[in-house]
């Protein structure tokens, strides 16, 4: 399979099920052997904050899902640099590459498929 896939997550982890479901779609794409990239943008960068727990909130704990990315072969994870600054996210629960607006443009246009979620 040569087609490449990018998932963009722009919703925060605990206020809806959107980011959790977006990660599910991404993991399925990765299981199809599609080269898969993940980008956190806007409030989506809040998924990256370490030591969040969804206990009692009827949501998935983001770090558990994010920890599965490597198992599924998702190595390329990006975060929008200006969103990280705006939301004050400095520590991340998994390794991410910082992308400025030029890199974002290149990243998105290089993909065969883009799945946006919010």
């Amino acid at each position, binding site marked *: *399979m040569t*087609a490449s*896939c990018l998932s963009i997550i722009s919703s925060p982890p605990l206020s809806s*099920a*959107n980011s959790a*479901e977006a990660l*599910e*779609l991404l993991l*399925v*794409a990765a*299981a*199809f052997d*599609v080269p898969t990239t993940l980008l956190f943008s806007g409030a989506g960068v809040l998924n990256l904050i370490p030591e969040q727990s969804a206990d009692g909130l009827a949501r998935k704990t983001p770090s558990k899902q994010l920890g599965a990315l490597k198992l599924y072969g998702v190595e390329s994870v990006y975060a929008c640099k200006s969103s990280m600054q705006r939301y004050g996210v400095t520590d991340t629960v998994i390794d991410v590459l910082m992308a400025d607006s030029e890199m974002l443009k290149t990243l998105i246009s290089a993909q*065969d*498929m*883009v*799945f*946006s*979620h*919010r």
Partner: protein
Amino acid sequence: MARFAIAVHGGPYESQAPISALRFATTAMSAGHEIARVFFYHDGVLNALMRETLQDEANPTSLWQKFASDTGVELTVCIAAALKRGIFDEREAKRYGTQISMADGFVLAGVGQMVDAAITSDRTITFLP
């Protein structure tokens, strides 16, 4: 002529996403383009709920049903997103000992169907809430 995969991520009463998707799909097909599949995800799966038509109100589910019967395009509903939102077809209703709540004309399937449609299409278009 191009082939499109369409994802609908918004529910019928919270967003404009489904009606925009429907209008896009209808227009694209009348211009000779092909729609690989319409895939309902997130709260978009709520478009597939059985519902009553109230006086003077459009019924979003019927609009999709008409589109599917006019065009033969498959309306695929993500099974995981659907089950947790209370949408069951005959088979799942039997499995979980509950009642059918999904309207005719929609099909439950795994999210892999979205990936498959996207891989085999020229463009993937997502309609967000």
